[in-house]
């Protein structure tokens, strides 16, 4: 018994450390080089040029992907145009079946996709496994079901597809953004040319394999990898009838300007600076989870991130205490570790942007708080950060940081909360935390944001339309509304 007692005393002093729990990566292969997916095959890029994609957690090269030039983009758009003739004439239920196949294949290869997504982009495996990949499969499943029901979607309309859609997607949710773009386009009867972000092309390459496995008719989906240049070639190509872009507001404006007078249809999903509003009667521990989820999920690389916390002054103190304590339990590290909460910043460029804005916050007089956090040696990392004593005029309260940085401001009354929340050129999302139902609806009515989350945050579903007001863009993705941009309804 004495031995047990002594051991107990020793053990009682120890802290519960979690041993490494690495996700297995040995059940599939990332190829050393990838071509372009055009006309149903992987083809060599015209210029033969390739560029590397790295793992931002280790800075190690994962593979080389092709750089599509004007000739490649032209081939892709023409392939999509040829495919459109037969694809749009297929019976709608046939189109549905191809899409159901794709959805099921994503489910079947879910783990491979999740690991590739994590390695290529830096997000924790827990997120790619439990959020990104399942939602991607769900988007294809949902829209597959619309393909043969379009006559029910819009009263008194017989919708027709547009033709070739040119789609540009960002690096923060690579496969999910691909699903948000391709699924509705295909359901509506269009064909697509999609350009993944330059730092995260790999899950799109696996998706190309899935299209081939599904025996999708050649040219219905084409994927051209490259950087900004490739993107502008896709946007500008005369064979493209519709453009869909998700990315920064800055580039969105460039695209909108470049398409003036072209007759092309356009949807934009751009940046945001969402207000997450916490009232004094909110369930506090759950509000803390919502705040944390709102800005630290995916390292804050989320257009609809709750990057401004507006807390009612009467509970600011207890809320901040809980929030700071909660930050200290966030685990930052190897994205492939199943217990990691905060992964790597997507690229050196993004890291520098975050650092610059955080420095500006300090300079302008906000108070910085970061929990103790060991950052790994190699790779791009930024600890979860929050700023208090922030004024509306500070850069950190106005500009999108796109990183794990929260700015905290206070308010006194609901009207003031609305005013501060709306005081931005952005309008993508907003959060409201209160126990009172009527107040939720009152706030929702007044917030100028395309998505209002009440007592939750960062919830996505294929049935739920998503998109912004003002400079956060126009057009909606998800739900019935997500079909409209891809249809000719005159």
């Amino acid at each position: 018994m004495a031995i047990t007692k002594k051991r107990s005393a020793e053990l009682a002093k120890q802290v519960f450390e979690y041993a490494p729990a690495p996700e297995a990566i040995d059940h599939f292969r990332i190829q050393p080089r990838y071509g372009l997916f055009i006309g149903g095959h992987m083809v060599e890029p015209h210029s033969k040029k390739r560029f590397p994609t790295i793992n931002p957690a280790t800075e190690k090269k994962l593979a080389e992907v092709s750089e599509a030039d004007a000739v490649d983009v032209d081939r892709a758009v023409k392939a999509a145009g040829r495919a459109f003739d037969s694809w749009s004439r297929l019976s709608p239920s046939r189109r549905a079946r191809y899409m159901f196949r794709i959805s099921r294949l994503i489910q079947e290869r879910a783990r491979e996709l999740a690991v590739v997504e994590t390695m290529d982009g830096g997000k924790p495996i827990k997120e790619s496994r439990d959020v990104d990949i399942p939602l991607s499969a769900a988007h294809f499943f949902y829209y597959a079901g619309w393909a043969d029901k379009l006559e029910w979607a819009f009263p008194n309309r017989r919708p027709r597809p547009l033709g070739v859609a040119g789609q540009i997607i960002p690096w923060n949710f690579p496969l999910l953004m691909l699903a948000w773009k391709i699924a509705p386009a295909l359901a509506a009867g269009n064909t697509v040319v999609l350009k993944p972000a330059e730092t995260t092309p790999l899950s799109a390459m696996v998706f190309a394999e899935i299209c081939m496995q599904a025996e999708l008719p050649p040219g219905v989906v084409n994927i051209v990898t490259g950087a900004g240049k490739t993107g502008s070639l896709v946007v500008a190509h005369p064979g493209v009838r519709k453009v869909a872009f998700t990315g920064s507001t800055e580039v969105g404006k460039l695209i909108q300007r470049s398409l003036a007078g072209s007759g092309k249809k356009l949807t934009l999903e751009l940046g945001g600076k969402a207000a997450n509003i916490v009232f004094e009667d909110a369930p506090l521990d759950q509000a803390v989870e919502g705040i944390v989820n709102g800005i630290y999920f995916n390292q804050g690389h989320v257009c609809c991130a709750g990057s401004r916390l507006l807390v009612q002054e009467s509970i600011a103190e207890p809320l901040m205490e809980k929030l700071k304590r909660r930050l200290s339990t966030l685990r930052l590290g190897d994205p492939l570790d199943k217990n990691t909460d905060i992964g790597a910043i997507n690229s050196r460029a993004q890291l520098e942007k975050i650092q610059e804005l955080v420095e500006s916050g300090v300079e302008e007089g906000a108070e910085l708080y970061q929990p103790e956090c060991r950052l790994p040696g190699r790779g791009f990392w930024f600890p979860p950060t929050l700023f208090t004593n922030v004024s509306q005029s500070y850069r950190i309260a106005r500009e999108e940081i796109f990183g794990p940085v929260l700015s905290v401001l206070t308010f006194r009354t609901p009207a003031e909360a609305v005013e501060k929340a709306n005081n931005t050129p952005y309008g993508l999302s907003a959060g409201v935390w209160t126990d009172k139902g009527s107040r939720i609806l009152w706030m929702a009515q007044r917030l100028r944001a395309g998505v209002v989350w009440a007592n939750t945050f960062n919830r996505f579903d294929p049935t739920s339309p998503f998109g912004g007001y003002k400079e956060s863009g126009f057009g909606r993705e998800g739900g019935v509304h997500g079909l409209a941009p891809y249809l000719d309804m005159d």
Partner: protein
Amino acid sequence: MDVRKTYKLFVNGEFVRSESGRAYRPDGNVNVPRGSRKDLRDAVRAARTAFPAWASRTAMNRGQILYRAAEMLDSRAAQFAELLGGSAKARRELDQAVETLVWYAGWTDKLPQVAGTVNPVAGPYFNFTIPEPTGVVGIVAPEEPSLAGLVRRLAPALCGGNVVVALAPESRPLPALTLAEVFATSDFPAGVVNVLSGQHRELLPWLAAHMDVNAIDVAGCTADEVKATEAAAADNVKRVIKGTPDEASPYLITAFMEMKTVWHPIGV
């Protein structure tokens, strides 16, 4: 030399013989269970027990399960084509049944978007109407087509979140009883779908008068049977559904649903 199959009823996720032990031979050769009122009673009980959990599954989950039923049915295409007579027409009927399941699988997560509404009432209230499943649905399968006819009534009922007690076609029950094997392997929770074979004159009056059945689909009833059913249904205000077997429409789903309207004030 074949190991011949014994055909059984499908109740509460299990294949069982009729508690009455009786059988009949609609084609003169194969013994088919002659379901009794007690089998029906057990099936309704199983369905009622299964209803809350099935209705509260997410729409996507129900859609995936219906799609799985399509996968399972399609993988048995050859078996069913033979059961239905082996002709090209039989094969077409099987394909139609698969297509019906796929089509309705895609409606589960869209129906509220088409059939539900947000109502702009004249006051500071948020007001919405959503469709909800009615509950336990009895289905009298049409005699012809003996597979696709039943599927065309089952699929919309299940799509909406209802649970089903189906009476197989009396003269050609084998495809319906085999269809139960498809449901048994499609991740449906026990009790959500129940299939009974037997004679209408024995089973239908009990189904029509059952106080714990919320709706009854009379696609397989004669005019006299419809009249008798409508009269009996009045005892618990049962909904009597007359689905048109050839049409495919979300309104065939809403026929099995209730509309719930909710009000909530909008105020600070």
